[in-house]
């Protein structure tokens, strides 16, 4: 029997209510339902999460590594975009 690789899926886990889903890793599965089951069995064995997303890796649109300079470097010398020029009033804890 010929061995055909199952498609790759990316797994995202929400570790607790209120936090956003974070990328946890990837896995192979024959279809979407199996991907969800496999994600549960592979990535949440030690109570890592309360919610799971899976998405086929080839459906993700990613930025091109060779274009990093055009994509991200222009932001590096624009320090005025960071809110670092303000004095934080006393008593404000989370800003």
């Amino acid at each position, binding site marked *: 029997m010929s061995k055909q690789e199952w498609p790759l899926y990316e797994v995202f886990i929400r570790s607790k209510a209120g936090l956003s889903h974070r990328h946890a890793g990837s896995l192979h599965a024959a*279809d979407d*339902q199996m991907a969800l089951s496999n994600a549960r069995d592979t990535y949440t064995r030690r109570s890592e999460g309360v919610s799971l997303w899976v998405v086929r890796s080839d459906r993700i649109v990613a930025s091109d590594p060779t274009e990093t300079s055009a994509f991200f470097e222009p932001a590096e010398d624009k320090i005025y975009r960071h809110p670092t020029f303000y004095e934080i009033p006393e008593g404000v804890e989370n800003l």
Partner: protein
Amino acid sequence: MSADQTLIAYTLRLADNALILAQRMIELVAAEPELEEELANANFALDYIGQARMLYSHAGELEGNGRSEDEFAFMRDEHEFRNLLLLEQPNGHFGDALVRQFLFEAFYLHLLEALIACSDQGLSEIAARAIKEVKYHNRHSAQWLVRLGDGTEFSRERVQASLDNAWRYTGEMFTGDDIDVAFQRDFDGPNLNAIRDLWKRDVERTVTEATLRLPDEQWMVSGGKQGQHSEHFGFLLAEMQYLQRSFPSATW
């Protein structure tokens, strides 16, 4: 048989089911066709070992002679084990093991549901914990059955054969003997006839979805619950008990 003895015997049957199925599943560790399936199977086997441990401890406490879970698991002989014949059957190929899992868990799910309502608090608590695990296993194996049945011509043919072969072991799950009857009467235990109807309904639904055919009514093998096992069982025990038999009470 006193009510206490009934409860101990009934608890040991449940424990033996969990342990022997776990042992068969453990034989598949490092032999699954895909890494993800490998992890799922090992997780499920560990769920069953957890259940077996709780059940043996409970039986040990009820018995009151200080027998430990290890003594129940590793120091009893073939005829003292009371697991269902279905669970000791060899793994065969992926479809065979899957069908065994599916047919048993479709039953076990309803059994646990009924056990939550039984009057023994220990069993009720163990059942409430186990049912969450088994619900997930059941979903997993039902999905696989549909995938294989409604898959290719080849997978369909093979899994139909697995279903036909395993079918003769399913009757035993619903054939109540004295212990089942006494447990139902004295401890508000499961009604096996009602569970058979639920099981039939669930199995039929998934089998139909998988475009497979339910096997015909046929002669059913039984005896596991009374300690009469198939020829495979001695080999299973030999492997499982080897260490404790060779080095009694070895620890590490």
